[in-house]
């Protein structure tokens, strides 16, 4: 065996914003920190693809020297996040979010992040700008970084975390990391879906590993689908540019019959649901219903048009935000031409954000000693629906998780890793390389992704979810154990990586589907055609999942309330959505 063993006080898993901020938080406390990143740290993960907006209350924003809205307050922002989340949020986490957001934004400015524009309660910059600043800072405080290392599993010894088994993707070496504490900042499981708006490596590795290690997961039924995401041609599939255009500039959405299908909904819902980030839940559901009822485009979406404005007016507005039609590193002048010539631009919902994940408390401790989590891989901050920024989430949660992990690491001795566990795990991860034939990882990936979008997408029903659970059970039994790689080389073997990822994808999808089946109501981004109402009498609780004797144990816990009491009664879903939108404070902007 050519495995190596590396020791560190705190091991951070994830090279996006949450991981880097956690690493900084831990290193500033004076402990040794090593960060492993599945791609290149600061140049991978969903943070890189973020718009990127950072939300904080307008008063604090005003005090930082931006226009902001001085009438805003932390309390108003708190209330809005709770109603946007349909009251399912853990209010302790929301308090932390609104309280810490201004500090995190201020330090980013101190670390050199440039702001492109600002509004009532948000500033806009780029994901790469935030990540570059965090990377510079992490180097200043002595964080060690290893790129292209995938988390395979967590080691637990006598109920406490003792380290991680990692794979150096480039060399194929298995690496044992021994650490006092581990912070998971592994993001969502976008790769379980097609289309998705994430970066390619996000396959729920951290969430699945935490589950295997005995940590609790929660709210796994809630998946945000970004609306108006490009579906065609393939090179653009999953890119959210028209989503931004529709939100910032305007335009019109039509179905295959040429109808302005949003006009059949309540005007208040349409107003909030197109002019703020409420659009992700509302427009995605409305789009999925058009597709389901046979009025969709060839690739499962609808069409985006510039609407009732002149081309000159539209283009001048677009290029104010995106000079020369350049969005991130992409030249979208070709899309501009398509819009100008009124050629069809197919857009639709794509998996973008995962409200559920690893259960944490306000110190970002999980239910396993020594295991911490931050960012999108955690549960409960945004409840059933996220409107405020996940970029602020990653910074706030990362900072605290890193500090908590460092404090914990100072108090414990370097744990032992049972050699037998290492050998057993290594043997398991190497098996796809030993099979001579069977199931091709890329084929299985495609099959699962399409099925997940169809049955566990923006619109669900019992029949579909049950069918999906059966589908996953068969895959677990008959296909996962047959995954094989064409080449047996361990050096950058993408089929091997995908075979390992698929186990995690299947695990999180199974948990998500079981949670979705259990929640017999519609709330936030979980919309059930067979239960089209929000049931505040029975469902103001979170679904919590834990591994017990190798089985998925599904239970519930009451929502965590610190300040704001939820409504009661059973309310038709669209009516509930309207109520939640109308409950918003007078503060404008997109959040």
């Amino acid at each position, binding site marked *: 065996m050519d495995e190596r063993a590396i020791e560190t006080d705190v091991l951070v898993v994830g090279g996006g914003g949450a991981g880097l901020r956690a690493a900084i938080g831990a290193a500033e406390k004076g402990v040794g920190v090593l960060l492993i990143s599945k*791609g*290149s740290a600061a*140049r*991978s993960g969903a943070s890189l693809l973020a718009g990127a907006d950072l939300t904080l209350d307008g008063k604090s924003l005003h005090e930082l020297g931006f226009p902001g809205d001085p009438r805003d307050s932390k309390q108003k922002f708190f209330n809005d996040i709770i109603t946007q989340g349909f009251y399912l949020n853990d209010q302790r986490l929301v308090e932390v979010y609104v309280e810490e957001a201004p500090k995190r934004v201020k330090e980013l400015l101190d670390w050199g992040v440039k702001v492109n524009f600002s509004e009532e309660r948000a500033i806009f910059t780029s994901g790469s*700008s935030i990540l570059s600043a965090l990377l510079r800072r992490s180097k200043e405080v002595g964080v060690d970084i290893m790129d292209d290392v995938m988390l395979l599993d967590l080691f637990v010894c006598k109920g406490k975390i003792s380290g991680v088994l990692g794979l150096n993707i480039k060399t194929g070496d298995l690496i044992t990391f021994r650490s006092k504490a581990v912070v998971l900042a592994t993001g969502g499981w976008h790769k379980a879906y097609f289309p998705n708006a994430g970066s390619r490596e996000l396959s729920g590795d951290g969430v699945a590993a935490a589950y295997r290690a005995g940590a609790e997961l929660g709210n796994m039924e809630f998946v945000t689908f970004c609306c108006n995401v490009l579906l065609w041609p393939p090179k*653009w599939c999953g890119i959210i540019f028209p989503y931004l255009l529709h939100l910032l500039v305007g335009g019109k959405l039509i179905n295959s019959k040429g109808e302005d299908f949003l006009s059949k909904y309540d005007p208040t819902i349409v107003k909030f649901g197109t002019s703020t980030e409420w659009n992700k839940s509302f427009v995605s559901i409305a789009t999925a219903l058009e597709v389901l009822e046979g009025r969709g485009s060839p690739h499962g979406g609808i069409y985006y048009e510039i609407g009732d404005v002149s081309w000159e007016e539209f283009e001048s507005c677009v290029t104010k935000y995106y000079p020369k039609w350049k969005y*991130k590193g992409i030249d979208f002048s070709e899309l501009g031409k398509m819009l100008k010539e009124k050629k069809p631009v197919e857009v639709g919902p794509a998996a973008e954000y995962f409200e559920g994940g690893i259960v944490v408390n306000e110190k970002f401790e999980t239910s396993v000693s020594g295991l911490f989590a931050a960012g999108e891989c955690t549960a409960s901050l945004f409840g059933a629906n996220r409107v405020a920024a996940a970029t602020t989430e990653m910074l706030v949660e990362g900072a605290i998780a890193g500090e908590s992990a460092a404090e914990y690491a100072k108090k414990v001795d370097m744990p032992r890793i049972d050699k037998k566990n290492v050998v057993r795990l290594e043997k398991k991860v190497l098996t796809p390389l030993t099979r001579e034939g069977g199931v091709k990882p890329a084929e299985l990936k495609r099959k699962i992704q399409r099925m997940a979008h169809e049955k566990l997408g923006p619109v669900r029903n019992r029949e579909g979810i049950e069918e999906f659970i059966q589908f996953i059970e068969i895959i677990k039994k008959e296909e996962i154990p047959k995954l094989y790689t064409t080449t047996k080389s361990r050096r*950058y073997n993408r089929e091997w990586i995908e075979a390992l990822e698929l186990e995690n994808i299947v695990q999180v999808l199974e948990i998500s589907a079981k949670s979705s089946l259990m929640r017999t109501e519609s709330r936030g981004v979980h919309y059930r055609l067979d239960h089209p109402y929000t049931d505040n009498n029975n469902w103001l609780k979170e679904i919590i999942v834990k591994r017990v004797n190798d089985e998925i144990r599904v239970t519930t816990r009451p929502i965590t309330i610190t300040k704001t009491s939820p409504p009661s009664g059973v309310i038709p879903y669209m009516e509930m959505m309207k109520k939640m939108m109308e409950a918003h404070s007078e503060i404008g902007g997109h959040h």
Partner: protein
Amino acid sequence: MSLKNIKVKVFRFDPTVEKKPRYQIYMVPLTEGMTVLDVLDYIYENVDGSLAYYGHAACRHGICGGCTLVINGKTCLACQTPVYEDVIIEPPPKSKIIRDIVYTKQSRRGSHE
């Protein structure tokens, strides 16, 4: 729908078992708007799963720099380079090859925004 078939010539090399690099030719059905990264994905998913290219964490937005390759002799980002004709795909000159067109330090961590 495929427009035509193109010939894709790819640099291949496993330094642990091979003495020198070789080139392999794949036939790929060209579709509308295909990029070099789409071509590599097509080969990996449909023709030859053994091909190594930096695809597991490619951002596809022209930001990460992970897919930097030499395409028809010119250094480009594979995800932002359109393909219309036959194409030759190689690693940057003098790079230390991990396997095929994956090489050491793939990301520049530069900003393209």
